[in-house]
């Protein structure tokens, strides 16, 4: 009887209860992360000033989007219809010599392939004064 009691005691000490280390659970979790794309704010305050006789200097204020990488110039002879380009990095642009007639301008911000909405359109008229094209 003494031997049995001693044996049980030894088994208990050596074996002990089950430990958490023996029972590691593993599993998986699924779900979604969310990312939000930015918008691209247009430049503001576009103005067109006559420069020399038939050229126009455009100036504007920066887009509120800090990820703006450039500004694309829109120009046309009908309101709201533009030929786009070039893209500049500054806040000013001087046109090449313009033909007689009314010219409409806008500018939009760029960020890689992105384009903002257009800044408010401005226009300038090139007229013939004594045989010379003149911006008014």
């Amino acid at each position, binding site marked *: *009887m*003494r031997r049995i*009691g*001693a044996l*049980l*005691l030894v088994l*208990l000490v050596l*074996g*002990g*209860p*089950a*430990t*958490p280390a*023996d*029972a*590691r*659970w*593993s*599993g*998986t*979790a*699924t*779900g*979604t*992360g*969310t*990312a*939000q*794309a*930015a*918008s*691209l704010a247009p430049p503001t305050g576009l103005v067109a000033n006559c420069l020399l006789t038939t050229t126009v200097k455009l100036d504007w204020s920066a887009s509120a*989007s800090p*990820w703006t990488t450039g500004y694309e110039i829109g120009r046309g002879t009908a309101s709201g219809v533009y030929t786009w380009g070039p893209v500049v990095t500054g806040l000013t642009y001087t046109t090449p010599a313009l033909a007689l007639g009314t010219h409409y301008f806008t500018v939009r911000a760029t*960020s*890689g*392939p*992105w*384009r903002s909405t257009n800044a408010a359109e401005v226009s300038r008229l090139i007229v013939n004064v004594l045989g010379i094209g003149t911006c008014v």
Partner: protein
Amino acid sequence: MGRKRKLVVIPLLAAGIAGAGIAWAAWTSTGSGSGTAQSTTSANSVIAASVFAADLYPGAVKSVTVTISNPNAYPVIVNSISAGTAPLVNTSCVADTVTSDARATDATGLFQSDLATKTIAGLGSGTYTLVTRMTATAVDACKSQTFSLPLTATLSSNA
């Protein structure tokens, strides 16, 4: 003398059995998981977006934070988080425009966003930061869109 030994052994035996029972109970919970050890039925954890990665733009690399919940009573660690790829958002903004990098497997657990904590307490949650990218060729139609990134994390108990 023999009677005294019996009185000592019986309580020890009882204590050992009770201890084993406690250890077992600590690893049992409701739900299901892919258990790899002796005692597990467990509730699966859930990943949820906790903070938006705002202001992604073409070529941007930003952080997104996700929360992983632990519905079980025992603490767990997150060992890995898969890469994520956003599916098609609209007809022009294609899949793969936004992705998140995987967090590589770490048997000791990934650090949470505080860069100090690894363990998620029982019934608690932890936040993890992922690097998120928008391709440089993201088209105009991706502007202002919300991208969902399916993620899978692996977890293990940590007690």
